[in-house]
């Protein structure tokens, strides 16, 4: 059984639970952006945007780099690996269960025939 850091998963999924934060990640998937560039497509206040970026930064889904007086944001997708692995483990478990259900139904059909 793969062990996951529960606090890391908590942070990752909490950060991903907000549609605006997922949109920010979508934007950063196209390339790095400063706060000024990030804000343009979003109809939200500056403190609101900064709060979302901070949550993503704390979850390490976004890393920032200071450039002079500004700060550039880019994806820090390593944390998504843990979440993807966690989901994959459950996907496989369910696949095995469905396989076993299929086997069972086949046997039932054979027994009735």
């Amino acid at each position: 059984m793969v062990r996951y850091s529960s606090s890391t998963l908590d942070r990752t999924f909490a950060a991903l639970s907000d549609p605006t934060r997922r949109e920010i990640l979508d934007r950063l998937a196209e390339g790095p952006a400063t706060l000024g560039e990030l804000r343009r497509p979003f109809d939200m206040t500056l403190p609101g945007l900064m709060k979302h970026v901070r949550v993503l930064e704390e979850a390490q889904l976004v890393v920032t780099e200071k450039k002079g007086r500004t700060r550039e944001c880019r994806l820090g997708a390593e944390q998504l690996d843990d979440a993807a692995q966690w989901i994959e483990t459950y996907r496989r478990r369910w696949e095995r269960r469905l396989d076993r259900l299929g086997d069972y139904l086949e046997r039932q059909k054979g027994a009735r025939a």
Partner: protein
Amino acid sequence: MSDLRLERVYATDPETVFDAFTDPDAQKELYADAPDWVVTSTCDLRVGGRWTIEFGPPGGPPARETSVFTVVDRPHRLGYVATMTMPDGTSFDTDLEVTFEEEAPGRTRLTILQTGFPTTRLRDEIAGGWPSILDGLGRVVAARAAGPHRP
């Protein structure tokens, strides 16, 4: 419209926050993004005096900020006109009003009001840079509150 207002509360007296905000020795903690960043500062703390800060990674051209003080009222208020240089080399002027309010003994509310941005875009860019500066100020005042400051 294109104004920026920031607030932060620090667990120390206004004098410590005021001094750390302007002290050239403290600027590295405020402006460096990594330990190897080069930060140099000079501060002539009087009305009409000049305050310069240069900062950036080693080897590259530093970002430069030059200000002229319009209000020096230690430890309550600081006013200055800042010329900030952006990564693309363009620069612009804004007015800054910084207040250090003692909310309770050993508890200071720092308020920064920065006005006169040419565009909201520039305002947003600068907003992205302030939090790490205010975090750095927090580290300096915490260290100074914990023990005597030895320059």
